[in-house]
């Protein structure tokens, strides 16, 4: 079953009087549980596409169907609801809240949902932190963690609410190759264990090796879509 369907998706940015097309008619379907990478050179439209799929931005034309619901006509409040309950994000620069501990940063995402008791929340956060190998570092603040550890916290934060889809924009761009490998293995492991769909953008060939589906994008168009077993 398709989790995401994009039909003729277009996005044009207006820079003064000049219209700059970022996406030019994207058609794409992503199934549940896929581990997909979108790659391409800088400025090819990878981030714009992820933003569209992540309900962070609205398209100029075309249709986005998420979990069998069109999200084209949703207002900003409704889009926030979709993100809150269904999506997880991993950012290149981690974007952890510096005044919160690793535990609190992960807890932040689940507190937005407000369906868990305090005890349940604590157990879930601790169990996930242990799973990403940071059980001992739950009380540390981001400035006391390495880049790889911060990204692990970010992965835990993205997964804590058991989203249908996790979007990661260049998740290993700020990490050395060894740490990148660890983070990718962790993401792969989470994908297999939880059956959470992952879509991440990159232009790092090492990262692409981990993906089971490779989507190449150039000048706002999909130029190659390849599945690997």
């Amino acid at each position, binding site marked *: 079953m398709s989790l995401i369907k994009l039909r003729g998706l277009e996005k044009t940015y207006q820079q003064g009087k000049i219209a700059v097309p970022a996406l030019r008619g994207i058609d794409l379907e992503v199934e549940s549980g896929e581990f997909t990478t979108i790659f391409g050179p800088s400025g090819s439209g990878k981030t714009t596409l992820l933003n569209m799929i992540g309900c962070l931005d609205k398209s100029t034309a075309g249709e986005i169907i998420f979990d069998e619901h069109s999200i084209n006509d949703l207002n900003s409040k409704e889009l*926030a609801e979709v993100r809150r309950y269904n999506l997880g994000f991993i950012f290149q620069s981690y974007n952890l809240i510096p*005044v919160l501990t690793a535990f609190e940063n992960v807890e932040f995402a689940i507190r937005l949902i407000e369906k868990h008791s305090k005890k349940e929340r604590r157990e879930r956060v601790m169990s996930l932190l242990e799973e990403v190998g940071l059980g001992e570092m739950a009380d540390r603040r981001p400035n006391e963690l390495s880049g790889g550890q911060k990204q692990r916290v970010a992965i835990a934060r993205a997964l804590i609410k058991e989203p249908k889809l996790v979007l990661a924009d260049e998740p290993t761009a700020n990490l050395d190759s060894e740490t990148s490998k660890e983070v990718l293995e962790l993401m792969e492991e989470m994908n297999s264990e939880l059956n959470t769909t992952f879509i991440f953008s990159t232009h790092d060939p090492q990262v692409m090796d981990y993906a089971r589906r490779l989507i190449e994008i150039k000048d706002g168009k999909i130029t190659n879509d390849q599945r690997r077993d």
Partner: protein
Amino acid sequence: MKFLMNIAFKNMFRNKLRTIVSILAIAFAVMIIVFARGLIDGMIEDTYSLYIHYDTGHIKIIDQEYEQKERLLSLQYTVNGVGNKSFSEMKEDLNNLEGIKMVIPRLKFGAAVSTEEELVQMLAWGVVGAKELQFTNLERQLVEGRMVKSGREVVMGTKLLAKINKSVGEDVTMVYTTAFSSFQGATFEIVGKIESNLPLLNEQLVFMPLDTAQRLLYLNNESTELLLVTNNREQANEYLPAVKNYLEKNGGADKYLAQSWKNGNSFIQLLEVSETIYNFVYLFLVLLSSIVVINTLVMIVKERTQEIGMMSALGLKKKEVMLLFMLEGSAMAVVGSFFGALAGGALNYYLSGVGFDYSAAFEDIDVLMNPIIYPTFKIEHMLFAFAIGVIVTTLTAIIPARRAAKLDPTEALREI
């Protein structure tokens, strides 16, 4: 909500210096408000009391013509009874009206004492000594001797006594103009000395028994004014209609003017208006300090743009982003206002004991004001300033908070 409060509180410590400066700005403004309110309250309260004691009573009855000529101390327009009722009957009737506690007659006239160097002019008041002691706070200021009772005796202020080079127990000869415009003189025994900060009491006034003044001026059973003391000064306006009704019933409506202390003196009316104006000044003061908080929050929004983008991506709604920043602003407001209110309260507590000497400023001003102002210490002032500090600052924090909430998540995430 609770977790947003937790984050807002923790965020306050991200840039401690900036937070401290913002908190100090609010604290300073709130402290000034507490102090200013205490000072103005002390001044107004004191001034009201002085005017009531030495000018207006709670209700004042004078001849309508006398109002125009009061400064000239005219003896032509007196209170001398109403209709067929004598002065004494009029006093008794007024005293029997509902809410009227006391009727105080005063006969005011000009007098002078000649010393070797100069002719010292003074303001003589014929009074019922016992009633004056009961109504005013003269007893506390009588530092030597006693208040006048009967016969040819006077009480004067310390500075006036020094001017005429006399002391308690000595005799003094005064000259004055009678109701028939004849120039006469009489000798009195000085039976008491008043020590007061108020120039009127200390260097201008001379008290003598009412009956003595009436005899000397040929104004038997007359006074220049009648002051009515009510059960509650704030209800003076409620008792006034009964007084006016009495005057009208007895044919005195055309002759006499009855006014409550609130309407009878333009300076008091001015003070009442100024109280309202000061409230706007306080508001303006907090608004000024809020600019520091707005500036801080604008900087914070700029610094945390990417973080706002991340929060939006995680599903935080615009109103929640706005709330987060408003909570941070109001947390600073609460802390600043709390310490400001405490500091202002402590300052007023201290100054309510030692006072604030304004004598130099009041030297040439002809108003009944105590030159030493004692700010009042009231919890109410602290609560008022705290509330205004928190409310105004929180409301002004809406401006940067809205700015944060309006950020487009994709733009915010791109910000470095």
